[in-house]
């Protein structure tokens, strides 16, 4: 089996190649996520950060390359083994993805009721604790449609950590949060990671926040990892990609535009058609 069990690598992604909708998204990506660390994945919008999480979670299959979690190759796993692996994973979706016809309380209770077999009284206690951790115990009886976007995200976080996963994925946990809840969430992610011995992967654009909690940062652009290292190393990096992203410069190698023919050609083409 692959050498990922040694040297504390929990998720080992090697030479990953994926195309979606006929366009290559990843073109040889290598990422190692170490046990017990908070690893951040950053990159411009549309580079495939969400896609990467879905690949690690086994919801998508790569065209080639390997995705190994806990020494098991995810794309090759049978359905039942994949589901067993997922019991040790938690994923906060970019959209929250709460069950709209269940209350917040029942949303958080859902994975516990499905898997834990715990008595109802204990489940009720656990759910309150999880909601308390994200500051929304008072919203337990509300339906997702009655929450703000930021609140929904935090309920989704409570649901994702309900089963005490070993490996947590956060897809944009900070978007839509005010400065206060943002600070709390940043601390919460770090504390969960350290207190419960988790391994966390955080996908985010918020450079400053990520730099304060991440042990290691991978920067994706153009289908490849353009830079990786500790936050301090990235701050010192002279790579044009990193500088543009870290310093939020409008000019640089990262294109603002999705690939297209030139604007002039596009406009002229329409007129002549």
């Amino acid at each position: 089996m692959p050498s990922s069990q040694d040297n504390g690598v929990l998720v080992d992604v090697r030479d990953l190649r994926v195309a979606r909708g006929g366009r290559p998204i990843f073109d040889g990506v290598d990422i190692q996520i170490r046990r017990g660390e908070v690893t951040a994945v950053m990159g411009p919008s549309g580079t495939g950060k969400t896609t990467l999480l879905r690949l690690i979670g086994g919801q998508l299959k790569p065209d080639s390359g390997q995705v190994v979690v806990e020494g098991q190759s995810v794309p090759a796993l049978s359905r039942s083994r994949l589901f067993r692996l997922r019991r040790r994973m938690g994923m906060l979706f970019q959209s929250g993805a709460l069950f709209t016809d269940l209350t917040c309380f029942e949303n958080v209770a859902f994975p516990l009721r499905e898997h834990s077999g715990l008595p109802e009284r204990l489940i009720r206690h656990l759910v309150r604790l999880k909601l308390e951790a994200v500051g929304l115990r008072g919203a337990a009886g509300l339906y997702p449609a009655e929450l703000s976007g930021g609140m929904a995200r935090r309920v989704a976080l409570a649901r994702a950590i309900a089963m005490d996963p070993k490996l947590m994925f956060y897809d944009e946990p900070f978007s839509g949060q005010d400065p206060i809840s943002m600070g709390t969430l940043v601390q919460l992610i770090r504390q969960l990671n350290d207190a419960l011995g988790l391994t966390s992967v955080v996908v985010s654009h918020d450079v400053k926040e990520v730099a304060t909690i991440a042990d290691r940062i991978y920067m994706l652009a153009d289908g490849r990892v353009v830079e990786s290292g500790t936050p301090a190393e990235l701050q010192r990096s002279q790579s044009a990609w990193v500088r543009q992203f870290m310093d939020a410069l409008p000019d640089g190698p990262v294109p603002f535009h999705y690939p297209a023919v030139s604007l002039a050609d596009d406009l002229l083409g329409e007129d002549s058609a």
Partner: protein
Amino acid sequence: MLARIQDLGAATLTAIGRIGRSSLFLGRLLAGLPLLVKRPGLVIQQLYVIGVLSLVIISVSGVFVGMVLALQGYYTLVDFGAEQSVGTLVALSLTRELGPVVTALLFGGRAGSALTAEIGLMKATDQLSSMEMMAVDPERRVVAPRLLAGFIAMPLLAAIFILLGVGGGYVVATSMLGIDGGAYWSQMQANVSFSDDIANGVIKSLTFGFVATWIAVFEGYDCKPTSEGVSRATTRTVVHTSLAVLGLDFLLTALMFD
């Protein structure tokens, strides 16, 4: 011209792909059905949504179809002096044909479209994906209970439709057409056979329930995860269910007719 042929080919391929996917989907669902024994609550909840909430439209339609059958039948039968057989005519039309068929069409429009829209929306809003990431199989947790509830509900709804239709026919026959109530029932009892007519209707309603629910859950699960995708899938459910029910009805009638 060439483009037309190409379009036709593409449409055929899409249709074949859809049939293949839906068959595999059905296979996986059926394999998972035994697991529902441990979770009867899931099925009962869906029986309520699919069955009980469809009761009103099915009951009202049943009564009216029965009443109309009695009226129409009477005007034809009276020319032959056979108006006392109007009970037989109502009961036979309902058990053999109209009960299963009309119930299935209404079921597709009322419960089937709702099933498709519900599952499709869950897909479009990532609820099914998030369930998968929680190691809960949405096919077993969400789809299978709905499928089973549809299988169970549809024949029961058809039975209710038929019973109320026969009742509606009775009211019209006795109060408006001057038929003797005793004759209505005794003619019916003498001429409707269990092994032929009723069994015929039961087989049809089981088949239609199976097909209608299968179409509804598949369209929802297979839809494009967008608002337009969901709305198209809902339309397809109603159209495909109607066509499938009418086509199968002819096939089953031809097979069972001797």
